[in-house]
Every structure is written in C-alpha cells, then in structure tokens.
C-alpha cells in the first residue's frame, strides 16, 4: 500500500533525524510479521502437500510402500497357477507372499486364525488384495499379540495367523510385498496396510472377494500349516495352470529353484525355530 509505505518512510526519516543510531524496531516487527505469516502458509501447505505423499495409492503414486524402509518385493504377476488341496508349492519366501496357490482362498475378511494355516490357502487372498499379518507364536504373546488381534479382527481384507519358525517376531505380506518387523507397535504396520491393502495397482484380481463359500473353506477349521519341507514333488513357482495337464494327472513338472536368480530355498520351509539363511 503506497500510503502505508510512505508514512513508514516518513517515520523512518524522522527517526534517522531524531537519533544518530537508528532503532529499526518497526522494520524488525514488520519482517517478523511477514516471516511468521510465511512460516504459517508454508507449514499449512507443506502438511497438505505431504499428505499427498503419504501412503494412499494414487494414479501418480501407485506403490507408496516404496517409501517404507525394509519392504521386500518380488514380481509374481505371471506365477499364479492354481494347485489342488493335496499339492505343495516350493515358495521362495517364508511366509510366502506370491506364487501359485490353492484354488480355494482362505477367508480374509478380518479373520484372526489362532492356529497356523496352510501356506497355499493363505497366498490366494493376497491375490485378492488382502494383507496377511503373521507372527512367531514363540515371541509374540500377551499384549503384543492382543494389539495385532485388535488391529485385524473385523477389518476388511486383513487376516492374522501364527507362523511357526518365523525368523522375525512379525511379518506382513501383501501380493509381491513383504515387511519383517520386531515390534507390534511399529508405525510401519499401518503404513504397509495403507499402502497395499486393496491397492488396485499392486494386486492382480481387482474386485475379488475375501468372503468364502462355506462349503469350500471353513475359517473355524482351516487346512493346517505344514512345517515339513515341500519336497521334490512340489509345484515350482513358475507353474501355470496350462503347463502339464494339471494336478489330476500327477504329471507335475519337477521342482526347480526359484527363477530370477534368487537363492534356492534350502528345502523350502525352514524347520521351526531354525531361521532361514540370508535376509
């Protein structure tokens, strides 16, 4: 405003005249006011801007989990064959987070499984957009376990189960993504769920359900976890429903090490209590 400016100039001129050493408190106050205003504006916009960079997937930020420290990823987009209830899959990670799976998916609509469940059923819900939280039952008990249960029970597209022999206390899985953690209070749990649960850009079967046909899968009595290694007859990761003539023929391709240069999973599932070699 010209009038304000000029009156200030007049005041400044007067003060220069009045005192040999000017006391520019007016200028200090003005700069301070502008600075406070600028900090306020900047702070407000930064918070709003930062929100956009947080963990909600968008067309511009398809996989916000890339910002989360410790997330391991694999591309399983072409390794999605269906196996039968009697087959095993030679998974390359434990717990597995992608690859061929049982045609019947485990219920993932906020189900807390008290007992370990068969891998092949638990991988299928990941393809449907669910996040699977696992814990080592020897190390996560009491309040920490209750915190995990509270987080999952009744929530859409989440499931929780114990995983014997897990090499960290807690591990989170979504399709092609895994994060291993030691603390049930770690804030990365929420970040992982927010980034990947029903993330239409990262899970293959957009729109698929977490509910199950009662005749196909009973959440109260799911197929049990098998600790023993899957053995040489296991279905390899690159098995597709087209290769071979299917599970009924028994002509399953021989087990092969995981493609993609990953270290071969020594015998598959590590023995309970024995942490697998490497990460």
């Amino acid at each position, binding site marked *: 405003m010209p009038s304000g400016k000029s009156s200030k100039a007049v005041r400044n001129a007067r003060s220069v005249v009045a005192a040999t050493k000017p006391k*520019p408190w007016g200028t200090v106050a003005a*700069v301070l006011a502008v600075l406070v205003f600028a900090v306020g504006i900047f702070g407000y916009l930064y918070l709003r801007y930062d929100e956009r960079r947080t963990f909600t997937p968008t067309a511009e930020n398809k996989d916000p989990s890339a910002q989360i420290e410790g997330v391991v990823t694999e591309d399983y987009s072409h390794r999605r064959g269906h196996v039968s209830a009697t087959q095993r899959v030679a998974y390359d990670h434990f717990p597995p987070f992608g690859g061929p799976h049982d045609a019947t998916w485990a219920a993932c609509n906020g189900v807390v499984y008290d007992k370990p469940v068969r891998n092949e059923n638990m991988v299928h819900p990941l393809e449907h957009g669910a996040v699977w939280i696992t814990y080592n039952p020897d190390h996560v008990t009491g309040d920490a376990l209750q915190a995990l249960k509270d987080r999952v029970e009744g929530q859409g597209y989440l499931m929780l189960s114990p995983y014997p022999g897990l090499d960290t206390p807690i591990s989170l899985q979504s399709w092609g993504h895994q994060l291993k953690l030691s603390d049930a209070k770690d804030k990365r749990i929420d970040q992982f769920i927010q980034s990947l649960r029903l993330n*239409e850009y990262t899970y293959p079967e957009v729109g698929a359900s977490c509910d199950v046909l009662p005749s196909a899968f009973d959440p109260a009595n799911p197929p049990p976890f098998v600790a023993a290694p899957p053995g040489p007859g296991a279905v390899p990761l690159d098995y597709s429903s087209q290769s071979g003539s299917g599970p009924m023929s028994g002509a399953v391709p021989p087990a092969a090490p995981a493609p993609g240069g990953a270290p071969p999973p020594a015998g598959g599932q590590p023995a309970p209590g024995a942490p697998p070699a490497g990460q």
Partner: protein
Amino acid sequence: MSPAPRWLHPLVAGGAVLAILLLGASLGMLVQLPGRGPAQPGAASVDVGFSQDMSVHHRQAVLMAGLARERSSDPVIRSLAFDIERTQLEQVGRMQGWLSLWNAAPLPTGRYMTWMTDAAPMPGMAHGSDPGASDPGAAGVTTMPGMASQADLDRLGAASGKAFDVLFLQLMLRHHQGGLPMASYAATHAETAQVRNLAQKIVVSQTSEGEYLTQLLAQRGARPLPPPT
C-alpha cells in the same frame, strides 16, 4: 534505550530473505496441489464405452457364475463360480460408479464396441481369431464376442451333473476370451488412469483364469468351444 546491536541488520535481512523463500516454496506447492484430474470423459470416449459395454459383458458372466455356484455339485466349480461372480460384480460396481460420476448413461444404447475406433489390429486378441470377423470398427456390433446366446443359456439351465459343469466351463472360457479385445483396447486407449488399470487387470486375470478353465476342462475330458468371433 541502547542502540540497535550490530547483528540486527543481517538478522532482519536474513529473516526477510527466508520469508521470501518460504512464500516462493508455498507458491510452488500451491501450483501442484489442486487435483489435476483429466476432464470428465465424454459420451463417445473409450472410458464411457468400455465401462458401459463391459458392464453388460460382465453381467452375463455374473449370471452364469451364479447359476453354477447354485447348481454344480463339484466344490471346485462352485468355488470358481463364486470367485467369478463376486469379482465381476464388484468390477461392474466400479464401472457403474464411474459412469454416474461422469453423468454418462449406465448402459449403451444401440450397438456395442463403437468406441473401438482404431481397432483394426487387436493386440492381445486370442489367437485363431480370423480378421474381420470380430472387427467392429466404429460401426459397432450387435453382440459382443464371447457372449452366450439365449440358446446357450437355455442349454446351461437345462443341464445337470458333469454335463452342466463342462458346459459352464466352456461358456465361461469363451466369455473370458471374448472380453479380452475390449479390455486390451481400453487398457491402452482410455484417458483415465483408473480405467486403463482396471482394463489391464481384466486382461491379465482373465487370461490366467482362462488357463485354469482350460485345465479344468481337460481334467473332465472336455475341450474348449471354438474361440469367439
């Protein structure tokens, strides 16, 4: 009153510079903040045409899958049918929601696939399709590829036991294959990122589910129907 200390001037100058920098940065963020979504797709757009036509196509899969979920005595078929029914109905919900937000009609009037204007070579089309047969051009078609006829549906409704399972698998496989050209066209031509993404997911998951359907047919000693035209 003591005179202004020596350090005051640089401090004030620094404060002023900082304020200017902060305001500049704020302006920069402000420019980026408003949602820069694309303009609403128009009535003739790929986005609208795909959402309308695929809604129709999906609903027939939902119909057949619902029948199989109720009727089949094979748990494998029932579970598969339930999966297809739920997934495709959910996807219909997405497409209908978009159409509502775009103020577009929920269903197409007249011919299908008129939005596939440069569909001469159709990448991702099931092999064995003979050129011209399913090439809609901008003129559109009266029946989309892979759709079961009323006679097909009547036969399915009358079938039972293993014959029902086989016919269901055959019709569903052909239905999946028939939807691929539309989905792969939309996956590359739609203007909205979410539409392109859904179309691409349909291509990939219906292709892999098609392999599974083929496997289930083989296990039952049956063959697929001729690919859709």
